[in-house]
């Protein structure tokens, strides 16, 4: 706990995190530490609590007990300061959740201008850089509906990066995409990981996990049943449940 303070402690630390929806315990005493620069993939059957865990980490979902620390700081019960924490955590959603009434560039510059007080010109300049980085430099004046799913998700990544987050959360970022668009999104995420971004990715893309992540975490029924580097994971010495699941999603 003491070492969690200071720049060398873990960026994210969950201790004994429990969360229920009604009688359904979705997260059961989760302990997890994620260091700066780590890329972690979280897998598990649907309904196992993966997405809920991500939503708890940036305070979109309140937890019942335990504690979550970000940069050494507890995020529960801090009132309006949670807004400042969230601005340091980028989130990418399964359904993209771009703002449909705004152009691509306005989607990206909204938070820098309105939350962080960046000037419009500076935010736009940076927004164009980000669009370049995610590989769609010529779409800034389009509205989301004019883009393919893969392009929309890359805009969503650019939007999340625009606030200069210390941590990126990806909630099944490719699950709503047609197969031919999955690659383009995963490529952007791989580049991000290589640039040293700390990221937690909920996904079933085991190829991505094997290639990119430092740790693969397997959650089942609200409990972490495996937490290992991907090479060990795929040798599968651990839980039978995880092994069975990985076999299923690799070979389907």
């Amino acid at each position, binding site marked *: 706990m003491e070492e969690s303070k200071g720049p060398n402690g873990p960026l994210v630390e969950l201790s004994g995190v429990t969360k229920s929806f009604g009688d359904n315990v979705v997260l059961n005493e989760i302990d997890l530490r994620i260091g700066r620069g780590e890329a972690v993939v979280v897998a598990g059957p649907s309904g196992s609590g993966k997405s809920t865990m991500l939503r708890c980490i940036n305070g979109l979902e309140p937890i019942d007990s335990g504690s979550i620390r970000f940069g050494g700081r507890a995020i529960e019960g801090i009132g309006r300061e949670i807004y400042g924490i969230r601005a340091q955590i980028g989130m990418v*959603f399964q*359904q993209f*959740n771009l703002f449909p009434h705004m152009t691509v560039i306005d989607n990206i510059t909204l938070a820098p201008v309105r939350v962080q007080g960046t000037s419009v010109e500076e935010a736009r300049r940076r927004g164009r850089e980000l669009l370049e980085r995610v590989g769609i430099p010529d779409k800034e004046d389009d509205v989301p509906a004019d883009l393919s799913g893969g392009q929309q998700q890359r805009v969503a990544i650019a939007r999340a990066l625009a606030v200069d987050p210390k941590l990126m959360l990806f909630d099944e970022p490719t699950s709503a995409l047609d197969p031919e668009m999955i690659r383009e999104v995963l490529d952007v995420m791989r580049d991000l990981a290589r640039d040293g971004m700390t990221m937690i990715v909920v996904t079933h893309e085991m190829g991505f996990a094997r290639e990119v992540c430092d740790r693969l975490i397997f959650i089942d029924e609200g409990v972490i049943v495996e937490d290992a580097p991907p090479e060990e994971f795929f040798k599968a010495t651990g839980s039978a449940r995880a092994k069975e699941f990985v076999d299923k999603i690799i070979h389907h």
Partner: protein
Amino acid sequence: MSGLWGVLQEHFPELLAGFLVTIRLVAIAFVIAMVVGAVVAALRISPSKWLQRIGGVYVETFRNIPLLVLLFISFAGLRRAGVPITPWIAGTASLGLYTAAYVAEALRSGAFAVGKGQIDAALSLGFSYASALRRIVIPQAFRSVIPTIGSLVIAMIRNSAIVGVSLLALPDLLKEARIIQSRTFETGEVFFWAAIGYLVLTLTATVAFRLLERRFEVRR
């Protein structure tokens, strides 16, 4: 002089004056309806149970009291109680606050159609819940309910006709028509031109809202 054209020529100045008063009345009430409607809708979709309740009480109060009764209360009633209220304030406030209840309901349904994912996205970018509503949800809700608000505005223009002829000394189009009619007994002709006046306003509103709808269409 009589006949439709004769009546129009003879009484054009009064009818025009009344028409302009109706435009002013409707324009002010429209602004009140939009602003108050947006605020009440925000209360109705806020996370606080108490704010939701306050918004609910507003909607049920103003939706369930007939406009004519509101006009009587706001002018005669308040005046009797010693509140120095002018016909203009009573008329625009009654019409505006009454319509605001319907605008709030329309916006609320529009806001629910916007979806929780939009709020999640805004919150995850560091916006407060209130700013997420103001910057993301309400603008989209407004766009999706433009046709509904168009119908409400047309209803408001028609409802405005009872403002002048109720207790208020407010010389709007129908009031002026009444005055001419009681002097000349050219009932059919005078009210025909009053109807045309209202038709001009409602058709203008119809076209304006069609254009707004086209301009602000949100494709998903």
